[in-house]
């Protein structure tokens, strides 16, 4: 009697699993082991490096940050933070490297996304020639090494194509193109000029926002569409012209001038930066185009048939029905393409664009020997950039997910 009563609750409980077969315990064990192994490897490597560095008389630390960097950065075009030989410090080298990495990545991502979508859509064009051309582009760019492409664009295309400084292509005094890059007039604002330009820029943006609202409202009320893009462009141009007129004497332009062998002054878009941007964009766009194509194909055929049978045109069908649905297929692999582009920008070392690997993990490390600190910081930069990119796009991704599925 007693026995059976005691056994009853025991039988209801789940049978006891030996800890060796419990998945939770196993997972914990393997994770623990992995972390321990990693820590051991890091400590060993770091310890070794530190000992080596001490033997060579290098003191590990951040003290070198405030030393003057005894080299010039090969090309310095960034407007926010510029480098002065003999004055700039090591930490400024780092900042310049990071900002150049960010700049090329942001513009590369913008360019690759636009070109990738365009080519991806063309790839599915009903026009045979257009579709084959897009396919050829995708295959050619995906299947050759990026480093080769960057060298090709820089050394085989853009550099030979552009004239030497003395034979620069010029458009009046304002636009000068040569091997060093494209020179534009640099606006110099004095006195009230700054205020006028700031005000007109703000006013133009406000006007465009108001116009968008108005156009949306009008379309909802009357059904009439409005050419927003051209109207916005007109507003921007009008604002710039008005500001120029009002500022009068308070704004002047600094033009680039030929001094010795090279042009000086003005605002310069270096040819290397353009070549790098072009190479990264063209390469990454080929991958994004494939993602876009895949995403569009994944949208059921019935969707575009339904849209067409309602009278929507090919373009409107793509824009309103197919692409919004394709987005949830396109975005995840495109996030990784954005991250790839950011990481690939470090290949710029080969053509001399001063991004973070070039000036920090390269030149600065050679000069100071502070490999531990510098490498950790450089890796950290890419991690942070990756995390930020993923976070932004994951946020967007959750917003385009379908409901009720």
């Amino acid at each position, binding site marked *: 009697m007693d026995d059976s009563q005691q056994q009853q609750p025991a039988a209801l409980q789940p049978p006891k699993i030996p800890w060796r077969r419990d998945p939770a315990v196993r997972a914990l064990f393997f994770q623990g082991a992995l972390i321990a192994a990693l820590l051991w490897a890091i400590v060993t490597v770091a310890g070794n490096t530190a000992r080596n560095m001490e033997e060579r008389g290098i003191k590990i630390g951040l003290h070198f940050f405030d030393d003057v960097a005894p080299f010039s950065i090969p090309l310095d075009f960034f407007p926010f933070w510029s480098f002065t030989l003999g004055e700039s410090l090591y930490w400024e080298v780092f900042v310049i490297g990071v900002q150049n990495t960010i700049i090329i990545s942001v513009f590369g991502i913008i360019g690759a996304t636009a070109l990738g979508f365009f080519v991806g859509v063309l790839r599915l064009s009903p026009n045979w020639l257009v579709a084959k051309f897009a396919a050829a582009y995708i295959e050619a760019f995906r299947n050759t090494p990026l480093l080769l492409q960057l060298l090709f664009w820089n050394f085989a295309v853009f550099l030979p194509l552009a004239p030497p400084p003395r034979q620069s292509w010029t458009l009046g005094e304002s636009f000068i193109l040569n091997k060093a890059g494209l020179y534009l007039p640099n606006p110099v604002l004095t006195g009230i000029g700054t205020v006028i330009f700031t005000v007109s820029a703000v006013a133009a943006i406000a006007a465009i926002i108001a116009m968008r609202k108005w156009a949306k409202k009008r379309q909802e009320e009357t059904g009439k569409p409005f050419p927003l893009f051209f109207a916005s462009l007109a507003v921007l141009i009008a604002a710039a012209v008005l500001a120029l007129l009002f500022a009068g004497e308070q704004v002047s332009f600094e033009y680039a001038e030929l001094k010795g062998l090279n042009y000086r002054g003005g605002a310069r878009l270096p040819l290397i930066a353009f070549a790098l941007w072009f190479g990264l964009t063209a390469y990454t766009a080929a991958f994004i185009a494939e993602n876009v194509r895949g995403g569009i194909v994944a949208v059921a055929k019935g969707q575009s048939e339904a849209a067409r049978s*309602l009278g929507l045109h090919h373009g409107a069908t793509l824009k309103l029905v197919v692409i919004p649905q394709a987005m949830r297929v396109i975005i995840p692999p495109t996030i990784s393409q954005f991250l790839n582009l950011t990481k690939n920008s470090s290949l710029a070392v080969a053509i001399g664009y001063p991004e973070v690997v070039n000036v920090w993990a390269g030149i600065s490390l050679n000069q100071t020997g502070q490999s531990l600190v510098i490498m950790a910081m450089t890796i950290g930069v890419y991690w942070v950039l990756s995390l930020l990119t993923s976070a932004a796009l994951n946020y967007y991704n959750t917003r385009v997910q379908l409901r009720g599925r």
Partner: protein
Amino acid sequence: MENGNTENTEKPAQNGGAPPQNGNGEMCMSLNAVNKWYGEFHVLRDINLEVCTGEKLVVCGPSGSGKSTLIRCINRLEEHQEGRISVNGIELNDDLKHIDEVRREVGMVFQHFNLFPHLTVLQNLTLAPIWVRKTPKNEAEEMAMHFLKRVKIPEQAAKYPGQLSGGQQQRVAIARSLCMKPKVMLFDEPTSALDPEMIKEVLDVMVELAREGMTMLCVTHEMGFARTVADRVIFMDEGQIVEENNPEDFFNNPQNDRTKLFLSQILSH
């Protein structure tokens, strides 16, 4: 082939002489010696068909006989290679303007609904009126609610298609087509992807639409629907129209052997 021959001689007489009772005699759609191939495969063979405004046609036939292809040619989801198709006097050819015009006149309901899953029910209904007809948004929404009421699901307007039952989705699809104010409605097996209890709610909507005088061309095997609504039933086999008759005679007194076989198979379960 004897059968085919006798019919071919009968048909013009039937069409030219006495237009079917429900139509008002005005020609709405005509297909003239239409032929279509998929590569080597001859899907539509010499199709001749005239439909008057207000007429209701039911198309049936075995799987693969070309029923879907036929009605998809009428709004140019498929291209025919020979013959002429015209809708409301607009000839369907390579002229994009004609294709646009025809698609605006012709609504289509698919077997698998093909609602836009990323848009709400209301947005599904207003999309084409806003972008194609340039209807003001408020007006488009009012009209959408009007048609949602007619298909008896106004309370679902804010939901997404994925949140509705199959029957509700198909009714939304019908309403979506109606929002474009079509002159003709094409249905391609609108109930064959539905559970039995949902079939009725969709058929009810279609019957009501028929009563209101819509010109309809409907591929379906719902014989009850054909009997109540159709002015004519068309039987297709291997890309040909092999029999064409009023529902009464079609079901009770089929002429063609293939029709007899088909009907016995359908009606046996």
